[in-house]
């Protein structure tokens, strides 16, 4: 199972992620997004706690990725793993593990709701498709 792939979109960045459950698809989408930032990663490791609450699963994914985008820029760090302590359709409590970054090759302006998909497909696999404004 491919964790994520970058799809076609005229102006921006469209990523499709797969996972065996919701947590995994969220984490794999995060990994795709982090890769798309083309970071120059430093050795220094980091750990950041986050807490997200949203009205539904789709909004939860957008808010989760938006928070990560914010932390990427403000803390200058990139994440390689998410440890979820709480996860349901409306709430996430997690720890993001990653590294400091000396620079990014790309910046994401926003995580959009455009044609957003978070759902189960065949074989119980979860799929998410998100469009990012770059």
């Amino acid at each position: 199972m491919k964790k994520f792939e970058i799809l076609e979109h005229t102006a921006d960045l469209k990523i499709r992620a797969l996972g065996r459950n919701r947590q995994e698809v969220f984490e794999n989408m995060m990994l795709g997004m982090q890769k798309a930032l083309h970071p120059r990663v430093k050795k220094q490791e980091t750990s950041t706690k986050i807490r997200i609450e949203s009205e539904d699963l789709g909004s939860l994914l957008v808010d989760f990725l938006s928070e990560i985008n914010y932390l990427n820029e403000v803390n200058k760090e990139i994440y390689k793993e998410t440890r979820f302590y709480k996860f349901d359709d409306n709430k996430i409590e997690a720890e993001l593990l990653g590294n400091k970054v000396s620079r990014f090759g790309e910046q994401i302006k926003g995580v959009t709701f455009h044609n957003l998909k978070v759902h189960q497909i065949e074989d119980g696999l979860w799929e998410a498709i998100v469009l990012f404004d770059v």
Partner: protein
Amino acid sequence: MLLKKDFRKINDWLWEVSKGFRYDMRVPARVYISENMLEQAFEDRAFEQLINVSCLPGIVNYAMAMPDIHSGYGFPIGGVAATKLPEGVISPGGIGYDQNCGIRLLKTEYRKQEIMPFIDKLATEMQRQIPSGLGKGHKTKLSIEQIDKVLENGIPYLVGQGHGTKQDIENCEANGRMEQADATTVSEKAKNRGGNQIGTLGSGNHFLEIQKVEEIFDIEAADAFGLFKEQIVVMIHTGSRGLGHQNCSDYLRTVMQAMPKYGISLPDKELACVPFSSSEGQRFFKAMSAAANFAWANRHMITCYTRRAWENVLDKKVKLDLLYDVAHNIAKIEEHIVNGEKVKLCVHRKGATRAFPPGHLEIPAKYRAIGQPVLIPGSMGTASYVLAGTEQGGPSFFSTCHGAGRRMSRTQARKTISGKEVAERLKRKGILVKCYSVRGISEEAPLAYKDIDNVVEVVHQAGLAKRVAKLVPLAVIKGE
């Protein structure tokens, strides 16, 4: 599914989809475009987005698109929609994530042959003085107090602090400051993101260019604007950086959550909107105005750093005067004639530029008889244009295009051409490219964009703006 047969030709440059096409349309949809370009534009879903825009409560006359139309969020890029105040809506998607992304042009007194010996040094020094903000950025981070002053007072605040001149205020759209701005409506997150980003370029399609005036189409207008053939000019394209992006994200969520209580439902989440007069609508407009001021401040500081760079290289005081600065992602409160009456509208321009006609009081006095200067950048290494607003622009609420418009995805561009090849082709044309990585260059290759000459031809023929001058790049600078 929208097809060409659903478009009625009004004239060679204007096409319309009637209100009857879909049950939820409140007004017809219109596209300023040539027949050729219309056929190509079906490839992405931009026209469907335009139909969705025509569903906005309070929308007046038409949902409109410019010839650089392509797919965006909620609104298509190149979209223009005006809603009637006070009950008409305001929609964050009608402005975009990069609030007040815009363009400015600086004029020098030099001709090409005088500057060519220094072009590499100038481009290098400009890249050094104006970081992209993706790496080291500026060493100074603005305090929250300073950010608040910039948010509320824009360019005039910075000039008051000793950066730049009075002319930098006068020759900027809105004099570099929207008065309704309120720093308390901008989140702490947005201020954190923007804090050390003033005077930085950003990534994607943002750029600095050293250009020369290649052709003059209208001598009277060029004289009034201070442009002459072979003149060296500098173009700056950037927006409100992380502050504006976060501001848009914040308010999209606020507006999305508030929308149901006003009984509004729309086909696209990114089209989320609230009545302008609602508390959320008011807060959003004040916050957007603040981010707009931040973007003007950003382009102003980049101007100051450009002046410093040129003085460092040429070792003397250099005149780099601001011709004009236009926003192309913004909402403005403007008065227009609708059905013979003067009406107050909230005009959304998303990837579209204001083009006020001759005589309009908001135009600086020295340009007023000619019309508002309009700046349209082409894709990297092609041409850019200076135009002027005309009296015939009324039907589009005096709006015109903003650039060439993409026609190919970033992934497709990367597959089609390498960044190295793009840089080589530009080099063969005599254009210097200064960039951090060639990867970003391939995504910005000219072949990924529509032809700027075609886009400007439509705008000129449709009477939305008239051509004044064509500019060509000598050096493209994309940040360190």
